[in-house]
């Protein structure tokens, strides 16, 4: 762990214990985020990416439970901290923006009031200064006429404005890490562009690191320096952005990139990934992707591949790149 690393996640395991069995939503995830860096965590629904975010924030509720691993944040393991310590961290040093801005805000309190609450909780600001701070930060995120708009209720805001307000709330206490979970998924394209531009600017101004979670590779590309591709509870591939797009090594990443319609590429037919995303209840051993993988080998159904560095800064979890495995194709 170098000086510039902000947060390191080691072998995180978060399971959900339900009547039908154990859902291994996050099953051994390793990630690093450096200071000032933006990491995109990409995957489809059910791959566990939101669970990773909630695990970092220690917001996992029963039947979910973090059963293993470490999350090192500024020299401390977040998983060993008590609830009151975590409360200090949440909103203060690590903030979360979620998918549905409108429903993440309490509908019976004014927007300004909710931001003020966040400020009061984490900063030593005088009462009379709070209003000014709130207006300042609303202005920063581009809300017109902030001193008036802060008296409005969430439902009086449009989707884009709500997301801006949420971003304001998340940044109000100058966090070191901003976790954004699908922040633009429910927004229109032009509004999404606005929000992404805003996030880029704020990242520069505040110097916060960002963990951007989503399934839209385009959105991730706009904002992130590095990208981690998740599949069924594990990280499949991790590298900086252009490497993953230009030289994807994991079969899932490759297939994914070829299966999405792209503006810059023209094809008659898209590449299909046969089958569906597996359910994570009592998963079978081996690589989670092997049932759908065209290059699967015998070992893939027996052992779990480990995320290993195959070239500088580029990690893959796949036996195709494991020099210990004889690369004989599976019949």
């Amino acid at each position: 762990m170098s000086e510039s690393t902000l947060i390191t996640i080691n072998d995180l395991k978060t399971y959900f214990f339900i009547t039908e069995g154990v859902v291994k939503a996050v099953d051994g995830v390793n990630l690093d985020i450096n200071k000032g860096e933006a990491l995109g965590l990409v995957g489809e629904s059910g791959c566990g990416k939101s669970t990773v975010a909630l695990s970092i924030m220690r917001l996992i509720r029963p039947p979910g439970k973090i059963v293993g691993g470490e999350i090192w944040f500024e020299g401390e393991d977040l998983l060993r901290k008590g609830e009151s310590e975590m409360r200090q961290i949440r909103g203060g040093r690590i903030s979360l923006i979620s998918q549905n801005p409108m429903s993440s805000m309490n509908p019976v309190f004014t927007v300004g009031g909710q931001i003020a609450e966040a400020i009061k909780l984490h900063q030593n600001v005088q009462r009379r200064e709070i209003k000014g701070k709130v207006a300042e930060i609303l202005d920063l995120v581009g809300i017109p006429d902030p001193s008036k708009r802060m008296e409005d209720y969430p439902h009086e805001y449009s989707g884009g404005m709500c997301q801006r307000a949420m971003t304001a709330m998340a940044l109000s206490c100058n966090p070191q890490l901003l976790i954004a979970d699908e922040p633009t998924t429910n927004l229109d394209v032009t509004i999404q562009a606005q929000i992404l531009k805003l996030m880029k600017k704020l990242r520069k101004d505040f110097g916060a690191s960002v963990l951007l979670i989503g399934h839209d590779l385009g959105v991730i590309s706009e904002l992130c320096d590095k990208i981690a591709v998740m599949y069924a509870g594990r990280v499949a591939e991790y590298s900086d952005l252009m490497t993953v797009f230009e030289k994807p090594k994991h079969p899932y990443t490759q297939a994914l990139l070829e299966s999405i319609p792209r503006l810059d590429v023209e094809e008659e037919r898209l590449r299909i990934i046969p089958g569906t995303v597996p359910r994570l209840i009592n998963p079978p051993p081996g690589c989670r992707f092997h049932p759908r993988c065209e290059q699967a080998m015998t070992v893939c159904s027996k052992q779990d591949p480990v995320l290993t560095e195959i070239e500088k800064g580029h990690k893959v979890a796949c036996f195709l790149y494991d020099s210990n495995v004889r690369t004989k194709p599976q019949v």
Partner: protein
Amino acid sequence: MSSNSRVKTDEKTEEPYEPSRATRLFIVWRKLRTSKLAVTGFGIVLLVATLALLAPVIAPYSPESFFLTMRPPTLTHLFGTDTIGRDLLTLVLYGARISLYVGLGAVFIEISIGLTIGMISGYFGGKVDEILMRITDLVLTLPTLPLLIVAVAVFKSKDINTIVLVMGIFGWPFMARVVRSEFLALRETLFVEAARSMGASNWRIILRHILPNVLSTVIVIATMDIPWYIFWEATLTFLGFGDPTSASWGVLLWRGYLYLQDAWWIITFPGLALFFTSLGFNLFGDGLRDALDVTTRGR
């Protein structure tokens, strides 16, 4: 093949047709058969119904025979005797007939009127809905007691059928409202819109698409209302609709309440009977609702 497994692959397989298709009815029946809830509930209801039906045969005495009044339970009078000297066990058995008839009859009327009005109101909306809802509100907010007293004077025949009718007529608004709100919600679903886009007629949508999804709610309300009506029947009887000397459970409960201090058994045994019967209906209702739920196949 585990029957709850999600079908995963999109690949065509060579597996043969599923043989003799388990008809929906059969699956429902199988689930009912194996559900502890349903079986227990049905067992209780069946027991009560049988006892009620066979009352004249199995009752130790006749409801018209009089013995010593207010005797506590003894070997000759297992449930004791009531205030005018009738054997309580006999009364409870005969009372079951009246009460079951009342409960089921009133619920039947409640469902008939309430479901129909709720369906039409919720689905068609607009003026029809407004009119029907005004009527529903009217019935709901009518001061029941004074009206019942008026009704007593008006209705010539004051027998058990009148009671059932009156209760059904006052009881349907709740069902109507609930059904209406379910229809309102389901009307906006995509599968209803899909049916419309195929050219399905309104009534087809109402009966074939929406109603099956509303049934479980109706069942739950119905099974909860049965004991309620049984109890309410007593009130009506005392108001003059029926024969206060008759021995429905409702009447027995009322009278037993008055004499609680002196003769605890008069309220206790009918009370227990009512409790078990309600339990039976509720359990069976739950079991039925689960059996009708297509998301489980049971074993």
